[in-house]
């Protein structure tokens, strides 16, 4: 496993991937807490896991169900968009993306 230290550049990279704006003053705070968390997580190295299949889900025999391709929901656009910050003609408005 990688070393558990996290530098400032890595914190910025992760924040970018997570789409979180960070202030400069927050960088060392995240460096510290991520390093501590990764050091805790590093205990996993103690476990011998060669040949062990990763477990993504707690119920082994559960398969994803399929259903008939039928419309089961009414169109609730008005109700759902009532929570939207900005809508117009059933479209969500965001800052201009293309010049």
């Amino acid at each position: 496993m990688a070393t558990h230290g996290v530098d400032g550049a890595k914190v910025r990279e992760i924040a970018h991937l997570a789409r979180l704006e960070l202030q400069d003053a927050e960088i060392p705070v995240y460096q510290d807490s991520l390093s501590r968390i990764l050091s805790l997580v590093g205990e996993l190295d103690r476990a011998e896991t060669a040949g062990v299949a990763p477990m993504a889900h707690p119920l082994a025999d559960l398969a994803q169900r399929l259903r008939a391709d039928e419309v089961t929901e009414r169109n609730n656009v008005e109700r759902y968009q009532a929570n939207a910050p900005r809508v117009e003609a059933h479209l969500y408005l965001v800052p201009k993306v293309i010049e």
Partner: protein
Amino acid sequence: MNKTLTELAAGLRAREFSSVELTRALLGRIEAAQPTLNAVISITQDTAFAQAAAADRELADGRAGPLTGVPILHKDIFCTEGVRTTCGSRMLDNFIAPYDATVVAKLKSAGTVMLGKTNMDEFAMGSSNETSYYGPVRNPWNTALVPGGSSGGSAAAVAARLAPAATATDTGGSIRQPAALCGVTGIKPTYGRVSRYGMIAFASSLDQGGVIAASAEDAALMLRAIAGFDPRDSTSVDRPVPDYAATLQESVAGLKIGLLKEFFEKGLEAENERRIREALTVFERLGATLVEVSLPNLPLSVPAYYVVAPAECSSNLARYDGVRFGHRCKDPRDLTELYTRTRAEGFGAEVKRRIMTGTYVLSAGYYDAYYLKAQRVRRLIADDFARAFSGVDVLMGPTTPTPAFALGSKTADPITMYLNDIYTIGANLAGLPAMSVPCGFVQGLPVGLQIIGPHFGEARLLTAAHAYQRETDWHRKAPPGYE
């Protein structure tokens, strides 16, 4: 007001009091306790009185079911149609849920009355209820202490007799740990037993809805109402729901109890251990047998969880983008800033820390070393449990290493807080049902006994807990001032 849900329901059916009267009394208690405990985020008085009046008509007509007219609280993680649903976050401060969670819909059709929505750690991420945007909940046994989390509001409210029961959720201990610290009974069902539809997602392979109540008997009634197959949740299990109340009186003579060796090792405070051992002697007296079992990989639960849960959290919380619902920052320059500033403003420190951790462990170059490794260890832990259940009926041990701790005492270092869930996380990783049952006090603070069962073993847990509660009265103790 120190009555169980079962007793209140009987009083309603006997017409000793009406649902409207009971609702009015409990709303009064909630309002009176709010400045001290901060257990609720919203009080839904108008809905409550309308539902109570409807319930009284059903009670008069003889159409009433076992829960008709019983007032309850919902954790603010469950969507409630037309009612603000915040998940304890600024991100959803303005969110009016457009539909009911399945748990809410089922309890509504069972005739319960919704009094309000309980306070919680933000997005259910926390073990002390201190990460809520709406301020911490305080423990009714001592208001300088935390109630536990993330379902801290539900646990404090039931402990303070503000409602006989409350819904709750458990991803790493969020039902059992606050139930233990507040001296009430909590059950986290088997993964897939209760629908997650309309339950705001944190870590989808771990999250499970359940109940906090005053007794196992009450929890049995509530669980019966909320459990069952739901086509709207792709991980819901299609399997009949037993009548949990019907098997409550069964004897525990011959029950094989496994004592989790790893739970009695370092970290468990001596007085807490004494209360747990005393509880175990009650089961022995009732004819159960105790045998020590070892789950060698269990001590790796916390590290495995703090990879898996943040990874799933970072993916689930990507939906909060300021576009379709929830908080949006003011005057973003461009789309990227809309996302980044909305999320920086809308999420609190612990949620951001988990998103950052999850993003890190899923990022290129780290995925195998952290995420796949944790998933492999998760299987080792699940296999340990499966092996244990081939020899015993239930596992028992402490719910928490210590009683409730002081507000602010574990907020500086995230690891200290994370380690508080050391005994509860294993059941989530393996998807097992587990309970916490009050089993005495340490210096005036409640202690919880944890009972873990095999998949779909809820009836066995409730029967064991009920047998214990017939022999003891710890679950009937109310905090001073809230009797």
